[in-house]
């Protein structure tokens, strides 16, 4: 019964516990389950970061061929996560602020915070600085889908808004109304302070 880490075709290194069948069963013992929840959320977040995935849905546990197949099921031990257990895990992750249900007031689909909004704000500002776009007005669309792929490619609008709001609070960005919606102008945070 020696378990070992396993590397998926996508190059993700699965933890050894992923090869243990009990990992796919919800445990009645609360202490045991707390450990399992912790390992699952870490696995989900690190896989999301690896694949640059931002959303997870409860039905991902059912469907095959989705983005999450590599971690939500293990064909080698003939186990997969069932939807109720995944729903439970997502709920626990939401409590520890590692995801937000999006849209809110439901618990079926969620946006993962493999970076916190503060981290995203830093990433955003760094990106603007490094690409020389300070003081230029950018639309949200230009940030999410830049011509050159960036760490921010595909970031959900909700995360982007929270990051920009954080930058505005620290006077490193300004929200500007433009003809076709909203725009943002990044400022040099250090000078404004």
């Amino acid at each position, binding site marked *: 019964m020696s378990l070992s880490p396993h590397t998926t075709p996508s190059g993700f290194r699965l933890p050894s516990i992923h090869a243990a069948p009990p990992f796919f069963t919800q445990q009645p*013992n609360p202490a045991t389950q707390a450990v399992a929840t912790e390992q699952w959320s870490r696995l989900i977040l690190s896989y999301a970061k690896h694949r640059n995935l931002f959303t997870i849905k409860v039905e991902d546990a059912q469907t095959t061929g989705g983005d999450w197949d590599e971690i939500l099921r293990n064909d080698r031990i003939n186990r997969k996560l*069932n939807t109720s257990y995944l729903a439970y895990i997502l709920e626990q992750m939401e409590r520890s602020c590692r995801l937000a249900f999006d849209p809110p007031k439901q618990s079926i689909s969620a946006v993962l915070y493999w970076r916190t909004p503060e981290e995203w704000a830093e990433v955003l500002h760094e990106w603007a600085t490094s690409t020389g776009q300070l003081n230029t007005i950018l639309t949200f669309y230009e940030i999410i889908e830049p011509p050159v792929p960036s760490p921010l490619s595909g970031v959900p609008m909700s995360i982007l808004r929270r990051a920009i709001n954080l930058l505005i609070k620290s006077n490193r960005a300004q929200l500007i109304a433009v003809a076709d919606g909203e725009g943002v102008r990044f400022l040099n945070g250090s000078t404004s302070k």
Partner: protein
Amino acid sequence: MGVLKRYTKPVDGTIPVPALLYDDESLLTSQESVGMYDGTQKSPKHQNGTVYTTTHRLFYVDHSHPHSRSFSLDLSSISRTDYYAGLFTSSPKITLYLHANNPSRTVDASSNDLQTWECEVCSYKNPPGLSPAASKLCGLCGVPRNTSQTNSGSPSPIPPKLTQHSSSQFLSTSLPSSATNLLSTPGSSTNPAQDAIIGANGEIPCPACTFLNHPSLPACEICGTALPRPKNVAGHPFARSAPSSRPVSPSPDEDEEDDDDDDTEATRLVRLSFRKGGDKSFYATLRRSLLGKGWESKVRSSSTPASQASGTGQGGLNSILRTVENTAANTQSNMEDALQDIESLAVKARDMVRMAEDLNEKLTVATATHTASNIIEPEEATFIRSSLSQLGLQMPNAPVTLDMMRDERRWHEELARELASVLQGNGSSWKQPGTNDEQGGGMMRKRGIIALDEVWGGWNRARGVALIPPSTFLSVLPHLPSYTSPPIHMRKFSTSGLSVLHTPPYARDVFADRMVTLLTLGPKTTVEVAHEEQLPVGLVQDMIAEAERFGDICRDEGGSGINIFGGRTESGEVRWWNNIFMDYEWDGQAS
């Protein structure tokens, strides 16, 4: 003279007296070596016999001729008694003065106590064997019996009020069934009047339709009218009590016709002469019995004698209800008596046990010190011991009862010691019916864990007496570990609520350790663990649930397998794993 003859009824003294009694009669006392005086004269045939006093009657059973010379005397015919203490060679005597009219005779005439009779009001079949007074009333509804007989048109018994003593001729003719005053010999004991109406072959003409019936029929074959029946023709000279006929052969010197002449208070008496003492206690008992008026008690209990005699109006529903109430009250008092007896027995039992203990010790000491001289014969000692054990007083195995112990705590400790021997069979020979443990060992000799209810049942089965209630059982259990080796503890499973007794290997943590060791070899299902532990699956399920609750193991339900039709068939059964989550360090992709 003829006093004895007139007032007494012959009985068969070869039958034990208790068998002669009526159902509602009871034997009070007896005295041997008593002689009878008939009037003021010694009765030569009744000089050595045993006298019995019952609630209803006085029996004299002759020593030499019990069959022919024994008789009974109804206490109801005694008007008063006198006691003479005796002087020099004169024995103590009891004088019984008798009533002028002889109730016993009339009662005897009206009662046919060898037969069951059916009450006309409630159709209750009254059993035979009741005393004359009691059998005059229906046992269920209390309606007097003679009303039915008058209505049926059969020869009616004369109500006691109308009957006068010694109108023997009148009695004989009007009451063919009661041949009490027969003058003839026993061989032809039917009286002349009876003979006249009996047919050639002993057939009996029906008084209503004159049909000649077979002598053994109690009622007319044609019209159902009750038949007059000569007793001795039926062919049972003596039955239970007081047959109506008198098989005592009449002595030539007796002349009953003259009885009425000297029938004065002075001569209407019977004396009992106590040749060998016992007179005082006998007299006391006799007086008590006379005062108790046991022969009337039945009448009194159902209705007052006056209303009873006045008519049948007092019968019916009220009487039935009262009878039922009386029966219930009797049952109740009997039950209470019995329970009190049991209690007093239980109190005595302690003394008995202590005495047996002492005796046993003395025997042991005696045999130990005097082996050579053999003061106490070994056979005798063995006999005493075996009788002790037959009485259930063999000390090592005697069940502990509360009254053996002074306080409750010590009692519980003693019980715990006893329970320990039941469970582990320590040195005693508790037998367990129903178990096939051939060594007679304890219930847990071969089993490390056992359900509480089974222990309770087994213990009480082993005790047999003074069973232990569950509450006491539970309070004994905390004392158990100190009397058992290895210590036996109680354990309650939180999942199912099942309580068990177990030896150390089945304690929670020990079992969990064993389980972990087992699971390092690979996951196991509950059934596999049960097989490994040689325990029932249900029990193992509880123990595993406990281990899981404490986080020693975790589960793999496996039900959400991807490839149902894949090589390994995995049913939905839970497989148990060691707790892989405990102490797990992340070894996946570093973020």
